[in-house]
C-alpha cells in the first residue's frame, strides 16, 4: 500500500517537473544560440578572444578513458578497421601529441593555446603530419559534438578533461609560480590522453568532426561549451530531466548480462573513487615528506656546522647532503604517483560515468519502445470504439494512425536491439582497453618505485663509510 503511494507521488512529482523542464526547453530553443534540442554548438568565427572556462556549474563532461600515456611522448594507437571487424587488425597507426602551451592575450581574457601534432599513415587523413593550434574550449566542443552524435547509439565516448576555474585564473593572472606551471602541464597531459582515447575508438576516428579537429587550421569557436550560454543551460536542463527520468523508468530487464554488467560497473565505480582518493592523499603526503626532508637536511647541515668535532661535523654535513638528495627523490616519486596512477584513476572514474550513461541510454530506448507500444494499444482501442460509433472518415484516420504507431513500435524495438548490441561490443572493447591500461600503468609505476629504492641504496651506501669514519 505504502509503496504504491510512493510511486504515485513520485510519478506525480516527476510529471510536474517534466512539464516545467519541457517548458524551459521550449523557451531556450527559441534563443538564438541553441538551434535545436541536441545543442550543436558551432557559431561563426569569434569576435575577439573570449573568456575560457567561465563558471561551470556542471563541470564534468563525462566520457571515456585513454590509455595512460603520462609523459609528453605522443601515443601510438592501433584502432580497429571497423566496428564489426574485430578480427581484421590492420597495422596502421596514428601518433598524437599535445605540446607547447602558449599564453595568448592577458588579464582575464587570456587563454592557453596548445599545439596538436598528428602523425599518421592512415588514408583518411589528408597529410602524413599535421600541426594545428587548439584551445581548451575546442576540445570541449569536440566532445560535445561527439557525445550528441554517438552516445544515444550506445557508443562510449571518451570524456574531455574537466574545467577548472581556480587553475585557469592563476594562469590568466600571470603567476609564473610552480602551481600554475603544474596546472598547465597537468592539463596538457590530460588533453593528450583525451585525444588518444578518442581516436582509439574505431567509429570516432572516422568521424568528420574529429578529422576536422585534428587537421583544419581554423576551427570555428565552440561557444556553447560555456556554462551560462543558452546551450549550457539547455545541457543543465537535459541533465536534470535525465535524472528525473531515471528515477521513474522501471525497466524489465530480460537480459541478465546487462544487469550483471551494470552491477559490476557500479562496484568498480565505488572502488576506483576510493582508490583515487587514497592515491591523491599519498601524492599530497609524499610532497609534504619531500618538503620536510629538505628542511631537515638544512637543519642537519647547520648542526654539522656548529659541531666542533671535525669528523662528526663532516659526517653530519654528509647526512645533510644525503637527505637533500632523498628529498628530490621523494618529489620525483610523488610526480610519478600523480601522473601515472592518480590521473589514470581520475580518467577511469569519468569513463565509468560515461559507461553508466550509455546503459541509461539503453533504458531510454527501451522506455521509448514501451511508450510506443502503449500508444499503439490506445490507438487500437480507439479504433475499436470508432468501429461501433460508425464514423467512416475518423475510422480511416484511426487506421492510419495504427499503422504509423505499428511502424514506430517496430522502429523502437529495432533501436533497442541495436543499442543493446552496440553496448555489448563497446563494453567488450572497453574492458580490453581497461585491462591493458591498468597493466601498463601499474607496471610502469612499480618500475618507478624500483628506481627510487635503487637510488636510496646508492645514497646510503655512499654515506655509510662516512659515518663509520667518525673517530
Amino acid at each position, binding site marked *: 500500500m505504502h509503496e504504491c503511494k510512493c510511486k504515485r507521488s513520485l510519478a506525480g512529482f516527476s510529471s510536474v517537473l517534466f512539464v516545467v523542464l519541457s517548458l524551459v526547453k521550449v523557451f531556450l530553443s527559441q534563443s538564438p544560440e541553441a538551434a535545436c534540442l541536441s545543442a550543436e554548438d558551432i557559431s561563426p568565427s569569434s569576435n575577439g578572444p573570449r573568456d575560457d572556462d567561465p563558471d561551470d556549474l556542471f563541470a564534468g563532461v563525462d566520457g571515456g578513458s585513454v590509455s595512460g600515456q603520462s609523459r609528453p611522448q605522443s601515443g601510438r594507437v592501433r584502432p580497429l578497421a571497423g566496428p564489426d571487424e574485430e578480427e581484421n587488425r590492420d597495422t596502421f597507426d596514428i601518433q598524437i601529441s599535445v605540446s607547447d602551451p602558449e599564453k595568448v592575450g592577458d588579464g582575464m581574457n587570456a587563454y592557453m593555446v596548445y599545439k596538436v601534432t598528428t602523425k599518421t599513415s592512415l588514408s583518411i587523413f589528408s597529410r602524413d603530419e599535421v600541426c594545428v593550434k587548439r584551445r581548451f574550449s575546442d576540445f570541449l566542443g569536440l566532445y560535445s559534438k561527439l557525445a550528441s552524435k554517438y552516445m544515444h547509439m550506445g557508443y562510449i565516448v571518451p570524456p574531455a578533461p574537466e574545467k577548472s576555474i581556480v587553475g585557469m585564473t592563476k594562469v590568466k593572472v600571470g603567476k609564473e609560480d610552480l602551481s600554475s606551471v603544474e596546472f598547465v602541464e597537468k592539463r596538457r597531459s590530460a588533453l593528450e590522453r583525451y585525444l588518444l582515447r578518442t581516436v582509439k575508438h574505431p567509429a570516432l576516428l572516422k568521424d568528420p568532426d574529429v578529422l576536422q579537429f585534428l587537421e583544419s587550421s581554423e576551427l570555428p569557436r565552440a561557444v556553447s561549451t560555456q556554462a551560462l550560454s543558452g546551450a549550457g543551460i539547455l545541457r543543465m536542463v537535459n541533465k536534470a530531466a535525465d535524472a528525473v527520468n531515471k528515477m521513474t523508468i522501471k525497466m524489465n530487464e530480460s537480459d541478465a548480462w546487462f544487469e550483471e554488467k551494470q552491477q*559490476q560497473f557500479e*562496484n*568498480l565505480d565505488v*572502488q*576506483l573513487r*576510493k*582508490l583515487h582518493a*587514497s*592515491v591523491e*592523499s*599519498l601524492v599530497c*603526503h*609524499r610532497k*609534504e*615528506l619531500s618538503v*620536510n*626532508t629538505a*628542511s*631537515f637536511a*638544512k*637543519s*642537519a647541515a*647547520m*648542526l654539522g*656546522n*656548529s*659541531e*666542533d*668535532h671535525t*669528523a*662528526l661535523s663532516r*659526517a*653530519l654535513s654528509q*647526512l645533510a647532503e644525503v637527505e637533500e638528495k632523498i628529498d628530490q627523490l621523494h618529489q620525483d616519486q610523488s610526480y610519478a604517483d600523480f601522473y601515472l596512477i592518480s590521473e589514470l584513476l581520475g580518467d577511469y572514474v569519468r569513463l565509468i560515468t560515461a559507461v553508466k550513461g550509455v546503459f541509461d541510454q539503453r533504458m531510454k530506448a527501451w522506455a521509448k519502445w514501451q511508450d510506443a507500444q502503449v500508444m499503439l494499444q490506445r490507438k487500437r482501442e480507439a479504433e475499436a470504439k470508432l468501429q461501433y460509433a460508425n464514423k467512416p472518415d475518423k475510422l480511416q484516420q484511426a487506421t492510419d494512425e495504427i499503422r504509423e504507431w505499428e511502424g514506430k513500435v517496430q522502429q523502437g524495438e529495432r533501436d533497442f536491439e541495436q543499442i543493446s548490441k552496440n553496448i555489448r561490443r563497446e563494453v567488450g572493447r572497453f*574492458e580490453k582497453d*581497461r*585491462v591493458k591500461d*591498468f*597493466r601498463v600503468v*601499474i*607496471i610502469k609505476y*612499480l*618500475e618507478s*618505485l*624500483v628506481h627510487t*629504492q*635503487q637510488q*636510496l*641504496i646508492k645514497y*646510503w*651506501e655512499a*654515506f*655509510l663509510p662516512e*659515518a*663509520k669514519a*667518525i673517530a
Partner: protein
Amino acid sequence: MKQTFCVIFKKESSIIAVDSISCGPHCLMNVDLQTDATLQVDISDALSERDKVKFTVHTKSTLPNFKQNEFSVVRQHEEFIWLHDSFVENEEYAGYIIPPAPPRPDFDASREKLQKLGEGEGSMTKEEFTKMKQELEAEYLAIFKKTVAMHEVFLCRVAAHPVLRKDLNFHVFLEYNQDLSVRGKNKKERLEDFFKNVVKSADGVLVAGVKDVDDFFEHEKTFLLEYHNRVKEASAKSDRKIRSHKNAADDINRIASTLYTLGTQDSTDLCKFFLKVSELFEKTRKIEARVAADEDLKLADLLKYYLRESQAAKDLLYRRGRALVDYENANKALDKARAKNKDVLQAETTQQVCCQKFEKISESAKQELIDFKTRRVAAFRKNLVELAELELKHAKGNLQLLQSCLGVLKGDT
C-alpha cells in the same frame, strides 16, 4: 640482558589487548656506558596501566652498601623526577652534568586514537578494524618501549658516574622496596618552579655576559649555546619528517586494501593483477613503517636526547658562571673591607668559600665537558652507522619485493 614487557591496556574493566614482548639488549638509546660489575642497573619489566607506567628497576651490585647482591623494586615516573631534582638541588653536585630527567610517558595521543577506533568500530569492516587495531597497538608498544629506554638510560648514566653513583638518594631509590611517597608537584610548587626558572634564565643571561678568562670555558660557552639551538631545530624538523613518512605509509595501507577489494570484484584478468599488487603494497607498507620507526629511534631520539644533555651541560656552565661571579664579588667585597678595615675576617672567609667552590666546580666541569664531547661523538657515530645500515637493509628488502612482484606481473602478460 633481556627484558620482558607485559603491556596491558585497560579500558574500564575490559582488556583491549595484552602483549608480551621480549626486547634485545637494553639501551635502545645508545649511550656509551662502561659496563661495570660493581653496579649494574636496568629496567627488567614494565607495566602500563590506565594512566601510569610502573617500571621494575633491577640492580646487581657488589658494593657493600647494599643489603643484597641482586634486587628489584617498582618505581613510577614521579620517583625518577624526584631523584633527578635531588641531584640538581644538591650543591655538592654543582660541578657535574646532571643526567637529564626522562620525559614523562605520554600515551595520550595513542590512547585517544584507540578510543576513537573503539567508537568507530561499527562503521568499518571486521578486517579493517582488526588491521587498524593491530597498528595502533604496535604504535602504543613502540612509545612504551621508548619511554622504558629513556628511563633506563637515566639510571645507567647515574650508575656510571663516579660520584653520582654513590649518592644516598640513589641507593634508596634502587633498594627501598616500598613506595617512596613522592608526590608530583602541586600547583603552588609548579608555579614556584616557573618563577624560579624565569629568574634563573634572566640570571643566566647576566652570567653568560661575563667574559671568562679561561679559553676552554669561553669556547664551550659559545659552542654549547649555538649547538643547543641547532639540535633543537634539527630535532623538530626530524619529527615532522618522520610524521610525513608515517602518513604516506598509512596511505599505502589504504591503497592496498582497496586494491584487494578490486581484485576480488573484478571480472577480467585484472583480478589476479590487483591481488598481487595489493599483497605487494601490504608488505612494502610494513617496510616503510619500519623505516619511519627506525629513523625515529636512531635519529629523532638521538637528537632529542642530546637536546636534553646539552641543556644539562649549559646548566653546568651556568652554575660555574654563577660561582665565578660570586667569587669576583667576594673579592671586591674583601678589597672594600680591607680598605675600610671592617669585617675583614668575615669577608676573607666568604672569599675563601667562594674561591673553593669556584675552583671545585671548574675542575670537575672541565672533565665533565670533555666526557660529554666523547659521549656525544660516540653516540652519534653509533646511531648514524646503525641508521645507514637499517636504511640500506630496508631499501634492499623493498627492492627485492618490488622486483620479484614485477617479475611475476610481467611474466603473466
